[in-house]
């Protein structure tokens, strides 16, 4: 984890549906770190990820990715979109073979066939599913499907990997495997990871920095050790000590 420079940042980012559900004054993410986003449900964590992945447009505010303003000219360009990717809580696999799924992003980017084949093979090995290459994606278990969704997401080496409670539906064995994969990717590729998790123990296990969201606001941000041992805000304290009722 050398990292250091700012890869992603937001300013005065808000999202309003019927009422405002997210309001982040200023926040930046450094290359090569793992961030854990925690907070009660409805706090705006998913909304935040969806905004920075451009799946939703902000009501107000600015997003900077790799030094360039996203939506700067009023329109999102594909190369910016391609720098980040998200894995959702429920794995959404396409109705084709496992290897076709993993190849999707590479094909979209026009990688040569031979290179795609090699990368897919390597990735399947990495997630421990090389024997499943030809299987139909619909025949996988939940844990296997989520590992394939992860392989598919990191196949094209995104600068930022967004994870929205990716292990919420997995069994302990698959959770451990998934976490190991994240840690490895972060080490090997210096991939920046922003992970929403329900589970504060998971944030403890893998995050370098922890961000606590509450009712649409970023309440506290700091090194994982500090957030869990000596949080500054009483709400953060209540949450990490499991006293927050939600």
């Amino acid at each position, binding site marked *: 984890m050398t990292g250091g420079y700012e890869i992603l940042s937001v300013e005065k980012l808000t999202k309003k549906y019927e009422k405002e559900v997210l309001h982040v004054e200023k926040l930046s993410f450094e290359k090569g770190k793992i961030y854990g986003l925690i907070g009660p449900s409805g706090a705006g964590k998913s909304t935040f990820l969806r905004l920075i992945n*451009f799946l939703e447009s902000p009501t107000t505010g600015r997003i900077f990715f790799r030094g360039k303003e996203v939506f700067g000219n009023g329109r999102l360009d594909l190369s910016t979109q*391609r720098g980040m990717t998200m894995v*959702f809580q429920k794995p959404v696999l*396409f*109705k084709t073979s496992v290897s076709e799924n993993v190849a*999707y992003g590479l094909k979209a980017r026009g990688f040569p066939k031979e290179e795609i084949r090699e990368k897919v093979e390597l990735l399947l090995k990495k997630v421990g599913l090389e024997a499943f290459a030809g299987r*139909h994606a619909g*025949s996988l278990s939940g844990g296997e499907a989520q590992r394939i969704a992860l392989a598919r997401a990191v196949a094209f080496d995104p600068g930022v990997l967004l994870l929205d409670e990716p292990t919420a539906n997995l069994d302990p064995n698959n959770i451990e495997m998934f976490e190991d994969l994240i840690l490895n990717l972060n080490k090997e590729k210096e991939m920046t990871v922003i992970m929403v998790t329900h589970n504060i123990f998971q944030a403890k296990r893998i995050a370098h920095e922890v961000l606590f969201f509450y009712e649409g606001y970023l309440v506290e941000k700091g090194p994982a050790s500090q957030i869990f041992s000596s949080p500054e805000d009483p709400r953060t304290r209540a949450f990490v000590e499991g006293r927050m009722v939600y």
Partner: protein
Amino acid sequence: MPRLIEGIIEAFTLIITLDPNLMKIIMLSLQVSGAAVALSMLCGVPLGAFLGLKPAVRTRFVSKILYTLMGLPPVVAGLIIYLLISRAGPLGVFGLLYTPTAMIIAQFTLAMPIIAGLTMVGIRSRGKEIQETARTLGASRLLTAWTVIRESRFAIFGAIVTGFGRVIAEVGAVMIVGGNIDGHTRVMTTAIVLETSKGHYELAIGLGVALLVISFVINSLLYYLQGGVGSYDRRL
């Protein structure tokens, strides 16, 4: 009664010998309905996909219109197209009345809403998450649209087959705008009406059998497709 049995026997003779008159009528039916469905597919699949990706609450009004049009009585569709293309109508100058083109237009108005409506319903279930997955994986707009359609292929095939089934069997619209002209705009259903009224059962029965066979093929296809929806499938 003997006439009926005679009719059946003659009908099968017509079918087995591939009677040119019978074949010509069947071919025209397939061409008109095929063209109408092809055009409906080109408009209806993108329209249905577009609507299916919008939140259901925002398309409530359009959906209601679409559902109403899905049940549009063929004679009403025929009447509307007739008024538009008859000599005094706004499109009268094109001289389309009593041509196969007019029949294609009329059947288009019947098949398009069905294909659009059923595509919409089919895409609504999984379209949004597929769209977001494709986008987050870096797909262009075009590839995203293609992925959404590809993922809903069973529902879309089903929609197309249902649309074809409706128009190949309808008689009201093609009768009004086609005029049932021998050798020019006579299709299976209008021929059956005419031949029956004249008491010439053999051709009517022959065409009826042909329609039944087509209907059987269509429904087998639908049955197969609906088996594929929901369950994962290696065949496609």
